[in-house]
């Protein structure tokens, strides 16, 4: 399978077209154009079915990332080289796709011998088991950084990806992540999630407030200051707005707030205003009015799911059943949604098809299945299922096969949320005592804590992956 994949992309690529120049500009528009050119010229057209899903449960790809080569003199270049190589390794390893080979085993030092295909003896890499090799060169002035990064297939002895980035010193991390995204795109055909964020709830201030961190847990920052209960963050499809539930007026109201400007809208119907879930969009929305979300409202005296405009105006009711209907989550096509209902006597996950109006029960195992999250790939749904008073994360398909349990005997595990490419799941767990945010691959491997903050962290929600950044 893998060999077939290797062969397939090699036939299509020749040495001439793989090394393209990408220029990072000060102005994002300029960068956009440069990137567009770069995308048009350097990425060979490939059908999606040529990619395989990398299953880290079965095999991780052995990867070598030797030290980057300083292309200018001085300690600052040396420092940037080291940091960039380390960040690239961390970023790629985050996916769970790779196994990083120990530097002690390397037989060759590209920073001495050279970072281009001509100067690499690929046998030195295949013999230690590396299938992929990344080399880098860094040139640095006081304020600017230039880096050239290459990905090699060691068995073919060929460069398969080459990029040069130039930008401000503070753009270093973006450049590294950009290249990491190229590597993931090359292997999987998907843009990945290296430009996404994770929103979550933290009790650090003594109240539940929403925080936002980069996908890898870096730079967490408080987003809301309601000084009360704040719950259920939900990202709009363009990543610019967050909907959430808060109690600033001592009632559960919904808020839609801009990610940067913090302006927004309040939805305060009588009763509950909870569990927002944005409808996915195929075309990039231009404004809040273009977007829709579903939420549970109970102003009629019954808890039902409604469709609302981005600003909170009710469009129509989506469910009709006495009792609780909460926690909607949309299929990527926006034509179906899953939700939690207690219509059978206890909470179970149901699917409503908007075209046919049909409602089907999805979960049958256990008596308490909540917090459904539809995979962005569309083929699976993650949820929290309770057994013996504790929740665990399960994944279920739509083919009638039983659910797969991803967390076992490790405290309570709740609130699964898929990465925008569907390759990973963020969740909360009490496995180390206090509730923290964790991530794992979609196959349940590589479970690890994302970050540690004062208080407890719950309710992670992975943002869309912003393009071209």
């Amino acid at each position: 399978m893998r060999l077939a994949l290797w062969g397939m992309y090699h036939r299509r690529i020749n040495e001439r077209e793989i090394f393209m120049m990408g220029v990072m500009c000060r102005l994002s528009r300029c960068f956009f154009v440069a990137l567009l050119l770069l995308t048009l010229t350097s990425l060979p057209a490939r059908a999606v079915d040529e990619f395989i899903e990398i299953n880290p449960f079965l095999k991780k790809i052995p990867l070598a990332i030797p030290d980057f080569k300083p292309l200018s003199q001085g300690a600052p270049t040396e420092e940037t080289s080291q940091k960039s190589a380390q960040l690239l390794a961390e970023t790629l390893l985050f996916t769970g796709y790779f196994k990083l080979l120990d530097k002690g085993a390397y037989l060759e030092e590209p920073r001495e011998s050279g970072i281009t295909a001509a100067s690499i003896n690929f046998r030195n890499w295949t013999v230690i088991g590396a299938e992929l090799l990344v080399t880098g060169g860094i040139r640095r002035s006081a304020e600017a950084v230039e880096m050239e990064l290459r990905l090699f297939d060691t068995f073919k002895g060929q460069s398969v990806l080459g990029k040069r980035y130039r930008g401000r010193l503070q753009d270093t991390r973006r450049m590294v992540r950009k290249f990491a995204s190229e590597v993931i795109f090359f292997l999987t055909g998907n843009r990945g999630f290296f430009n996404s964020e994770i929103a979550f709830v933290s009790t650090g201030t003594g109240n539940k407030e929403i925080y936002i961190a980069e996908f890898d847990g870096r730079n967490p920052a408080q987003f809301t200051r309601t000084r009360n209960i704040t719950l259920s963050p939900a990202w709009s499809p363009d990543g610019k707005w967050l909907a959430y539930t808060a109690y600033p007026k001592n009632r559960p109201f919904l808020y839609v707030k801009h990610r940067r400007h913090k302006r927004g809208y309040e939805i305060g119907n009588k009763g509950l205003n909870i569990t927002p879930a944005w409808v996915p969009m195929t075309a990039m929305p231009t404004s809040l009015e273009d977007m829709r979300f579903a939420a549970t409202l109970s102003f009629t005296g019954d808890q039902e799911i409604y469709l609302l405009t981005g600003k909170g105006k009710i469009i129509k009711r989506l469910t009709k059943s006495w009792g609780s209907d909460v926690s909607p989550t949309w299929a990527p096509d926006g034509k179906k949604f899953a939700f939690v209902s207690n219509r059978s006597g206890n909470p179970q996950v149901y699917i409503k098809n908007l075209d046919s109006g049909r409602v089907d029960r999805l979960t049958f195992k256990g008596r308490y299945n909540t917090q459904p999250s539809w995979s962005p790939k569309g083929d699976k749904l993650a949820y929290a299922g309770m057994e013996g008073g504790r929740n665990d994360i399960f994944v279920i398909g739509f083919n009638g096969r039983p659910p797969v349990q991803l967390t076992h005997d490790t405290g309570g595990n709740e609130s699964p949320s898929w990465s925008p490419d569907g390759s990973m799941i963020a969740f909360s767990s009490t496995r180390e005592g206090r509730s923290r945010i964790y991530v794992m691959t979609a196959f349940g491997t590589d479970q690890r804590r994302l970050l540690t903050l004062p208080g407890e962290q719950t309710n992670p929600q992975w943002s869309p992956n912003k393009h071209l950044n």
Partner: protein
Amino acid sequence: MQRKLWTVLALLVLVPGLMLMTSCAQQSAVDQDTTQKTTPPADTSGTTDSGADLQADAAQRAAEQAMNQFLNEHIYYSFDSAQLSAMAQATLKRKAAWLQANADATVAIEGHCDERGTNEYNLALGERRAESARAYLVDLGISASRLSTISYGEERPLDARSTEEAWAKNRRGQFKLR
């Protein structure tokens, strides 16, 4: 356990009281002077030990006690249920009696859950709990307009421990004066 509850309640009364005092103390001297002037001098009538006053005092104490009971006696639910047990119904009958005796009181019924469920579903469950208590009181003749409901889901536990005892205490309907 009972004693602990009372201690908590005493603190609940005392702490805001103290805070009020300190915030008053922070006010300007002018404010304090005017307050003193407008307050009628205490105990000048010389009738403090009359029988009528003692009776009034006792009545007031009884009223306070009744109100405290109304506010501190919660109704309890079983896991993932909003149904009223026989005990919960008996408690609600006492609450109805108090509400009938205090016709100007309007109350908020809070629905709470234990931590085992998940937040979102518990917000819904908490509302169903509060609504079932409200419906029962309306059936007993209390005007619906005097009763509002609010769900706190699992967000405001009385007992933060993860034990059966704590969970049972936290699955409650709690009454607050509005």
